[in-house]
């Protein structure tokens, strides 16, 4: 899961920058990696790839602002209620 998320970020927002240029805890917002519309691309990818429904109130940095945040968020979403 982590690799698929990283690959999406590198292919679509970092356009193939060095692997070492993004740590899993780095904030996308602070580093300007994802712009105002990029977040919608990310949400569409996560929904499609991991078969999850992301609600508007879940669109917050705590869930989506780093590779680790995303992995934790998907893991939580995939857990049975």
């Amino acid at each position, binding site marked *: 899961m982590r690799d698929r998320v990283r690959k999406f970020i590198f*292919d*679509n927002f*970092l*356009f*193939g*920058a060095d692997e070492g240029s993004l740590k899993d805890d780095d904030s996308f*917002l602070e580093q*300007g990696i994802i*712009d*105002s*519309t*990029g*977040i*919608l*691309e990310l949400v569409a990818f996560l929904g499609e790839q991991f078969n999850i429904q992301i609600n*508007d109130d879940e*669109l*917050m*940095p705590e869930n989506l602002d780093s590779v680790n945040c995303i992995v934790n968020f998907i893991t939580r979403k995939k857990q049975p209620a």
Partner: protein
Amino acid sequence: MCGIAGFLNLNDGKDASIATLKRMLSSIRHRGPDGAGVYYDGRACLGHARLSIIDLAGGTQPMCNEDKSVWITFNGEIFNYIELREGLLKKGHVLKTHSDTEVIIHLYEDHGAECLKYLNGQFAFAVWDKNKGELFLARDRLGIRPLFYAGSGGAFFFASEIKAIFAANVIERAMDPDALDEIFTLWCTVPPRTAFKGVSELPPAHYMTVKNGVASIKQYWDVDLSGCGEELGFEDSMEALKGLLIDATRLRLRADVPVGAYLSGGLDSSVTTALIRNFSSAPLQTFSVAFEDGDYDESVYQKEMARALGTEHHEIRCSYSDISENFARVIWHTEKPILRTAPVPLFLLSGLVRKNGFKVVLTGEGADEVLGGYDIFRETKIRQFWARFPDSAHRPMLLKKLYPYLPAFQGQSKFYREAFFNTGAAGTSDILFSHRPRWRTASRNRLFFSDWMRGMLKGSAEDAYAKTLPAGFEGWPPVARAQYIELKNLLPGYILSSQGDRVSMAHSIEGRFPFLDHRVVEFCSRLPLRYKIRGLNEKFILKKAMKPHLPENIVKRTKQPYLAPDGKSFFKSGKASDYVEDMLSDERITEYGYFNPGPVRLLVNKCRRGAVTGFRDNMALVGILSVQILHRQFLKGPVAAAL
């Protein structure tokens, strides 16, 4: 409106001759297909490609004074030339023609560089004063008409377009990496820098003298938005603005050929057209761009306005393939990389105007800058309001009122919207407060630059730009600062050039802009902000002033910026046209050297998938493609060899 070119030999005259000038002029023949003229006295050479608009029989250039000691080559229009001519005749000058050109010569004789303050117009010209041995070059206040120059050591060259300077075959051709960085951050170059090393642009509102091999440049005008002006009441201001706009339009209808108007469907061009209709007896034909892609199309409003004013209306419908097929031709005319395709439909529109037998159109450019129309001013106002109480939960909610025409913006969560517009603790004290979010976003596309490009950059484009701002700028109100940056940066550097002069003159069409009459600009600069933007209602005073003359739908309509489809214009079913595929191929990207092929490949793949939706990716694609095309057209060959 014409094309000018010339040179001044600085020593033995080996660098340039009449043949040189003929090459220069023929490269800009599109600017003046009605005739050409040359003056050469062994030292100075002035050339002119003419588009006949005023005094069709007598306006041939270069033109001289009574004793042939002062010569001029002139591009543009002096709209108050009739009044200036009367004054000169009273002073005893003998004028042989009824052209505006001759007026400048005699004003220059009387006042030297001070002559510029009498001119109401859009101009770029060169005056050769034989007795003084001095070349005098000047450009209008707002940068409507272009003027470039370069020195070779043996000669000093000038021209309306850079291609004419290159046609002299003396200046080495190379792209300037810092210029590309400026375009990828600020959207345009900051004069005197151009996209090419060794070629400079005379900044708007500046003049230049060259004498004994020494060049000197001075600014003769600036707009003051510091907010220290005397205040008129709203009603008086509204009437004064309307009176000025009527007069500015009246002057701009002066021509010995028919004058048309552009209609975008928005407020500004509707105002211009209504002013022509209501305050002159001129018959009127109007011209518009419609888009096949409904997201960009405003033809309903264009037709409504044409019907309301009873104009004979013409429309050109623009498809994705029209943009792709004409993009390279447009880059040949812009002579600089662009980040959006919006100049292409305007290039097609000027072709439509030409086909209908017109040479002159009035348009609404400048209204957004002088009357607070752009979203960035509303955005700045909200961010300033928020910055006073950064912890407020309610103030940033106003951000949702911005960009109602952008579904991606409206669809994002409040956290991300706020994060994008929050530029940190410096708040409004940041000298570039208004433009920081969008320049920060644009500059992320530097990640496509090659290692060679990065190594050549001398610093940050934003920092360099900040140093050009006037003394005391940091103390101006934030929205006034934003207005100044738009007026001095994007207006001349993109709107009036890549989207203006260059794409209209490509088809020998002259644009005229009532909102950019300097009296209108100066008057509006003194208006209180609340007259221009009431709450978040942009161009409030203009709407109030023109309400009786416009359909209600036009006045009440939510502002829609002029945009054209970018990335999707180039890719159909995952494939681009052959020239685009070639320009963006690994081979060509590596050969030209400005970008890193790996990241460009990923961006192109994203375009093929139809996954490019945001401004940043679209700007990257259009920017990279235009740099590649510019290199092919003007340099042709590996970049390292050209340096």
